[in-house]
């Protein structure tokens, strides 16, 4: 596989996305919501917990850890949700614009095209995830060192690093691949987005589970990473099997 060929496709797709206001606004909105709005809500929640006179120091510490852990978990949702917007444009959009046929006629392999398009969905999603995570970390840390009951930096911690460094990109890859599969079966961007969005559901359940469990352990994060890695590998083979140029030209309607 010639990676430079894939990169040409990626660069082109990124240029197209830059000019698509819907995609652009979706990309900008996510880090604002996840990076600014949610941390502020969590800080209000933490202030309420800490302000309670009945809580012991150990209870305060547990509450802070749980809420910070939950805030971190939300950064798994961004890279899982965004590909349903971007990847649906990437594949179904090409079909709608009828631009796939000349693209498939170029001396580029299926794998190179698939990788190029996947990267074009993966890169902006992870970029806004990291921007959101960085903003969120700064807001939480500024609050924590200025709060006497806490008095220390909360982020980064091993759990945060594991979520941002492993779970988030693995969730993003899973979403991109699922969207590629969905794109090969539908001819409408909204349908692709809605079906592609379904991949987020298991991750939503994970966040709900994390929010209801007594503590969010690093072990849980490692287990989730392993499960996502296995799912990514399975979906990769499935998406490769789905991305057949003959199928695309003769069966995509």
């Amino acid at each position, binding site marked *: 596989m010639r990676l430079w060929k894939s990169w040409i496709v990626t660069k082109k797709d990124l240029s197209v996305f830059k000019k698509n206001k819907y995609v652009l606004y979706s990309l900008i909105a996510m880090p604002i919501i996840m990076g600014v709005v949610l941390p502020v809500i969590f800080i209000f929640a933490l202030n309420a917990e800490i302000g309670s006179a009945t809580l012991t120091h150990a209870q305060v510490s547990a509450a802070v850890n749980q809420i910070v852990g939950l805030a971190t978990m939300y950064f798994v949702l961004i890279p899982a949700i965004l590909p349903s917007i971007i990847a649906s444009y990437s594949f179904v959009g090409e079909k709608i614009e009828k631009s796939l046929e*000349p693209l498939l006629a170029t001396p580029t392999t299926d794998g190179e095209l698939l990788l190029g398009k996947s990267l074009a969905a993966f890169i902006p999603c992870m970029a806004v995830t990291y921007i959101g995570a960085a903003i969120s970390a700064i807001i939480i840390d500024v609050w924590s060192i200025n709060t006497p009951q806490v008095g220390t930096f909360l982020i980064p911690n091993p759990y945060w690093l594991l979520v941002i460094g492993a779970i988030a990109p693995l969730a993003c890859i899973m979403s991109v691949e699922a969207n590629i599969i969905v794109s090969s079966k539908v001819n409408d961007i909204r349908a692709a987005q809605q079906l592609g969005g379904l991949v987020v559901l298991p991750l939503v359940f994970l966040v709900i589970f994390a929010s209801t469990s007594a503590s969010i352990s690093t072990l849980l994060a490692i287990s989730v990473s392993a499960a996502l890695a296995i799912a990514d590998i399975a979906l990769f083979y499935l998406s490769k099997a789905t991305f057949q140029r*003959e199928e695309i030209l003769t069966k995509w309607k």
Partner: protein
Amino acid sequence: MIDLQNLTRKFGNLTAVDNVTLHVEEGEVFGFLGPNGAGKTTTVRMLCCLIGKTSGEARIGNYSVDTEANCLKIRQMVGFLPENVGLYDSLSAYQNLDFYGQLYEVPESKRKENIEHLLTLLGIWKRREDAVGTFSKGTKQKIAIARALIHDPKVLFLDEPTANLDPEASKTVRDFILDLKKGKRTIFLNTHNLDEAERLCDRIAILKTKLIAVDSPKNLERSLYNRKTIVHLQNVTSSITAAVEKLGSIKNVRVSDNKLILDMDNPEKDNPEVVKAIVGAGGSIQYVTELRSTLEDVYLKLIREASVQ
């Protein structure tokens, strides 16, 4: 340059292309005529390695359209204009061509040179930075043709290049193809525009799932009826008719008003003799014309016959 041997493509129970055998010479402009659903696009897609064949052989140059490695080489040596232009509307004309130039592995300096040359030739250079979405259909078609030529391919496949274009845009595109013809490039033109095929193509194949006929437009036109010369006279007399009937080259003589309608094999050779005979018999000739069947007559007849079969 292009060789098809019993090429067949089936989609389930439907046979889209049935045992097509033909050969296209290097530098030839070859027209592929047929009604909608005749298998023209399927054939071109097989030749461009976009879809596979069910059976038979197809070769472009030295490469057979079977393995992935061969297909990559074929795609590198052919340019393809699909029926739908498929440009990226939000990107500029330059960006569209530059993207494809990169995929076709054209070095950067050559790419810039080719883009400037093609867009200048097509009269779009000044608008190169405009988004393609702002262009008319005709201009988009020109950009799509430029895209097919960005890597200077040896073989060019054009699928309905003037479909849905207004007469002026059609003429511009046709003139451009005529210019390309001078460049010794092999051009495979899918069309159901008979006039276009007649003007542009060295040879024409008529397809309706099966190959019905392959020949030059002139030979196809002549294949329908015997060639006929019409001699317009001031007055047709029995002595004139008798003088013409005596000529061995005339197969049949028919009189209609003041016209003699003569069936003959080689009018270019035999018309002078005919004129001499008529003048010798006291005839006064106003003018001599040839009665031809058109490519449309031939096409419709062959397609109807194929439908009956």
